[in-house]
C-alpha cells in the first residue's frame, strides 16, 4: 500500500516557513552504509534530514561524498550543533552551518551531561536567544521541563524539541505526562519529540499526544533492516497523527459490550 493512500486525512503542515506533508524528521547517521542511508531516507518520505559539521582535512573526500548524496535527495536540511557544550560553541557552529548548508535552520543541541547526553537548559537558552535575534529558525533540543520550554518560547523559539528519553537509548517516551503538559501549554508552538524513540509504537504515542512531528535516527539506522523500519515509522507517524485528529474515546472503568444486547439469543442473566 502506498502511504499517499493513508495520507488522505493527514493535512499539510507548516514548520520554519516551509509547508510539508511528512511529519518525520530523519537523521543521517549510523546507517550500515551510505547507500542504505539514502534508501532509508527515500523510503521514509521524510522532508527534513538532520546533518552535522565536523573537522575535515583537505584531502578527505568522505564528508563531501556524504553531502553530495544528501543534496541529491532535494529535501530540507536541518544542521545540528551536536557535540557543543557551551552557548559560544553552539553559536559558532550554527553560524558555520548557515554558511555551508545555506539555511537559517539550526537544531540547537548543547549537552550538559556526558552520561545521558541531557541538554544544558542554561546554555541552550542563552544560545537560543542570540540565534533567534541573528535570524535563525531555532529547533532547540530540550528536556520535557515545562519551565525550560516556557523560557525558550519567551526568547522567541517557535519550535521546541523535547526529548522522549536520552539520545540513542531507544527507551521511548519516559514521561508522557510532561510532554502532554508542554503540548497543552503551548498550542501555538510546533512541537517535535526528539531523541529516545525506539520503535514505531513510540512514534505513534508521541503523535497521539498532539505533537507535530517526530525526529529520529538510531531507531531506523540501527534496526536489522533500516529501509523497512523507515517504512514502519512512516506509517506509524501517519497513524498517530490521524489518531490524534480523530480524537480517542474516553477510558471507562468497566467493560461495555460493543455488540448490541437487544435481541441476544439464549439470553441469560448473570446471578
Amino acid at each position: 500500500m502506498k502511504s499517499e493512500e493513508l495520507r488522505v486525512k493527514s493535512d499539510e503542515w507548516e514548520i520554519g516557513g516551509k509547508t510539508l506533508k511528512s511529519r518525520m524528521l530523519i537523521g543521517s547517521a549510523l546507517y550500515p552504509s551510505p547507500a542504505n542511508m539514502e534508501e532509508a531516507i527515500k523510503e521514509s518520505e521524510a522532508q527534513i534530514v538532520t546533518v552535522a559539521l565536523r573537522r575535515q582535512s583537505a584531502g578527505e573526500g568522505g564528508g563531501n561524498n556524504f553531502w553530495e548524496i544528501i543534496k541529491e535527495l532535494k529535501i530540507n536540511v536541518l544542521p545540528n550543533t551536536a557535540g557543543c557544550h557551551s552557548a559560544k560553541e553552539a553559536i559558532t557552529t550554527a553560524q558555520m552551518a548557515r554558511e555551508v548548508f545555506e539555511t537559517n535552520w539550526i537544531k540547537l543541541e548543547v549537552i550538559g551531561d556526558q552520561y545521558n547526553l541531557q541538554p544544558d537548559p542554561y546554555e541552550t537558552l542563552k544560545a537560543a536567544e542570540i540565534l533567534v535575534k541573528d535570524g535563525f529558525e531555532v529547533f532547540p533540543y530540550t528536556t520535557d521541563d515545562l519551565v525550560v520550554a516556557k523560557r525558550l518560547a519567551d526568547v522567541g523559539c517557535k519550535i521546541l524539541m523535547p526529548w522522549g528519553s536520552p539520545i540513542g537509548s531507544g527507551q521511548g517516551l519516559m514521561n508522557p505526562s510532561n510532554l502532554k503538559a508542554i503540548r497543552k501549554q503551548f498550542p501555538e508552538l510546533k512541537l517535535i519529540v526528539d531523541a529516545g524513540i525506539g520503535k514505531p509504537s513510540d512514534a505513534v504515542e508521541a503523535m497521539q499526544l498532539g505533537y507535530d512531528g517526530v525526529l529520529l535516527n538510531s531507531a531506523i539506522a540501527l534496526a536489522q533492516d533500516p529501509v523497512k523500519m523507515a517504512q514502519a515509522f512512516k506509517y506509524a507517524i501517519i497513524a498517530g497523527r490521524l489518531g490524534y485528529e480523530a480524537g480517542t474515546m474516553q477510558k471507562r472503568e468497566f467493560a461495555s459490550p460493543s455488540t448490541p444486547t437487544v435481541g441476544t439469543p439464549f439470553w441469560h442473566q448473570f446471578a
Partner: protein
Amino acid sequence: MIKISVNGEIKELKENLNVKQLIEVLEYKTKGFAVAINTTFVPIAKYEETIIHDGDTIDILAPVQGG
C-alpha cells in the same frame, strides 16, 4: 615563523597569512567548508581581511552525518 593549530594539528607558517591564503596553502577546495578562528566564525566575505596570528586555533568544518 608562527605556530598555529589547524583542526587539532600544529602547523608552522613562515609569515602571517590571511584566511584565504591559508586555505590555499593547506590545499582545501574553494567550497563546502566553514572556518572558525579561536571559536569565532569567519565568514567567506572576511577571509582576505582576517590575518592568522601566532597561537591561533583554526577549525575547518565540513558536512558529515548527524542525528
